[in-house]
């Protein structure tokens, strides 16, 4: 059987296609990062060559450092992402536990209600969300963003976590009940640790769109001291359009942290995506 599936020619073809697509996927990112380390002349004269002693320069990064407030932007993005993520995971897990564990009237309806948001994007409510935030004085605060992203992340989180919580052994929970654990303790002590892998998957899925979002920071929190990295980079690039060193450096600075995080967690992410598959 192995022979029918693995002729060398097929294997070479498979690798050729994958390598070609990998190059397509990585090339633009590499071009940006590599050129951000070169002098202005070198960027234009030989965009495809690596920086050498003569052409190496950090002038772009110096401009970004001097002109943009990227540390503050990073801090804002970090606060917004971590806080929303924590809320989504905690609230989502709690709701998923209620939906998967208890039979009560309206259970299915509640599940459907919460799942609506998977298909209907929260952006369509922007006009009224802005009015709501203006009315409650939350415009240009990070709280506004955290609330919106929590609402945005919850539907998918509840949906995925419900599926996973249904697989947690009933006997274990009943044993906990016989030992006199309250429902809250059963949730926090028994169920939550068991669904940790699913939480990690949901976490990654929730985090990426929040970190990368441009729409809500642009509309709800465009002030200088609440800008997120994505919006900050967008505005900075708009102002420095002709300063290629600075633009490339700003782009690289926006790429690198996400890239490092992704490479650190990619195993977890991919295992999470395929978790349903190999269970």
């Amino acid at each position, binding site marked *: *059987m192995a022979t029918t599936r693995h002729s060398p020619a097929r294997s070479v073809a498979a690798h050729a296609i994958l390598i070609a*697509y990998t190059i397509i996927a990585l090339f633009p*990112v590499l071009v940006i990062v590599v050129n951000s380390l070169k002098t202005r002349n070198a960027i234009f004269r030989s965009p495809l060559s690596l920086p050498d002693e003569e052409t190496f320069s950090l002038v772009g990064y110096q401009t970004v450092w001097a002109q943009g407030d990227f540390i503050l932007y990073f801090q804002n993005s970090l606060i917004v992402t971590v806080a929303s993520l924590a809320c989504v995971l905690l609230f989502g897990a*709690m709701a998923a536990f209620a939906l998967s564990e208890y039979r009560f009237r309206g259970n299915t309806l509640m599940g459907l209600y919460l799942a609506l948001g998977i298909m209907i*994007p929260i952006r369509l409510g922007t006009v*009224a969300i802005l009015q709501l935030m203006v009315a409650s004085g939350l415009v240009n605060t990070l709280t506004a963003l955290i609330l919106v992203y929590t609402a945005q992340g*919850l539907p998918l989180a509840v949906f995925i976590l419900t599926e996973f919580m249904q697989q947690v052994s009933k006997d274990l929970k009943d044993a906990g009940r016989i030992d006199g654990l*309250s429902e809250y303790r059963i949730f926090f002590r028994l169920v939550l640790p068991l669904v940790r892998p699913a939480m990690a998957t949901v976490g990654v899925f929730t985090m990426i769109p929040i970190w990368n979002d441009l729409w809500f920071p642009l509309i709800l929190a465009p002030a200088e001291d609440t800008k997120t990295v*994505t919006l900050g980079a967008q505005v900075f690039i708009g102002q420095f359009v002709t300063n290629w060193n600075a633009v490339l450096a700003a782009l690289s600075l926006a790429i690198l942290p996400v890239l490092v995080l992704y490479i650190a967690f990619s195993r977890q992410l991919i295992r999470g995506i395929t978790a349903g598959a*190999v269970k």
Partner: protein
Amino acid sequence: MSTPQTEKHPVRWHIAVFLAPAVIVYTTIMILPLFGTLQLSFFRQIDREAVFVGLDNFRTLLLDPRWSASFWNALGNNMWFFVVHMLVQNPIGILLAAILSSPRLRLAAFYRTAIFIPTILSFVIVGFGWKLILSPIWGVAPSLLDAVGLKVLFAPWLGKEEYALTTLSLISVWQFVGIPMMLIYAALLTIPDEIIEAAECDGITGMSQFWKVKLPLILPSIGIISVLTFVANFNAFDLIYSAQGALAGPNFATDILGTFLYRTFFGFQLQIGDPNMGSTIASIMFLIILAGVCFYLFVIQRRLRRYQF
């Protein structure tokens, strides 16, 4: 709540406690504003007062020549944006997943990780990065084409009305191809080995095995990917805004519903922002997305056969 027989309790408060935070945040920040936006689309500001005008805003948007041209342009562009995704992104995703899932492929983890990288990048990076790479000022794209002897093909793709939208769609495909790849890959892994072995015993291998055995089994995943793509495309904004600005140039050639909504709601240049017309556009987007999702749920999904192993 310490008694074991929770079933006999008249009110099980813990259920409410578990549900409350999620339901409250979700309802106030998402569901109510969604209906609020729908409601706003039936009003108009006349002398600083909200006046109920029924379907007048919709009539203006669809029929008034000052609005309808922009609207139909945005809708048509959005359709094309979606078509390009369906025709390019999903087949490439399926192809890559099919190759990746072949057993004992070396370096599979590396390929998966690398091909997924563009998906995690923000639209600002993708939009602006590609804008630089395709720029005729910077020679990356022309010199690459020159290397393979196709320099004549080069054009400032993002600056030409006839190419700009397709170029942006392809950039978006480049960014998101990782998602269908991963979902299909996961679906292919669920196919039990016995089925594949049975197929091989019957002499079905290679390409015909993919078409006759695996593809029918992953059709439900392809359906889900299609509807996710539809929702994402009709709600897209960031990439166009990052690459072409709110005016979605050249000459509105890349204007889609998201950018049209943004300009209408916030105003641009001389036009003043109009929350009511903005809501009207958002409502239409809502209806389009709802129609697409219902079509998927009631027409496509019912006809797809799901196999339980």
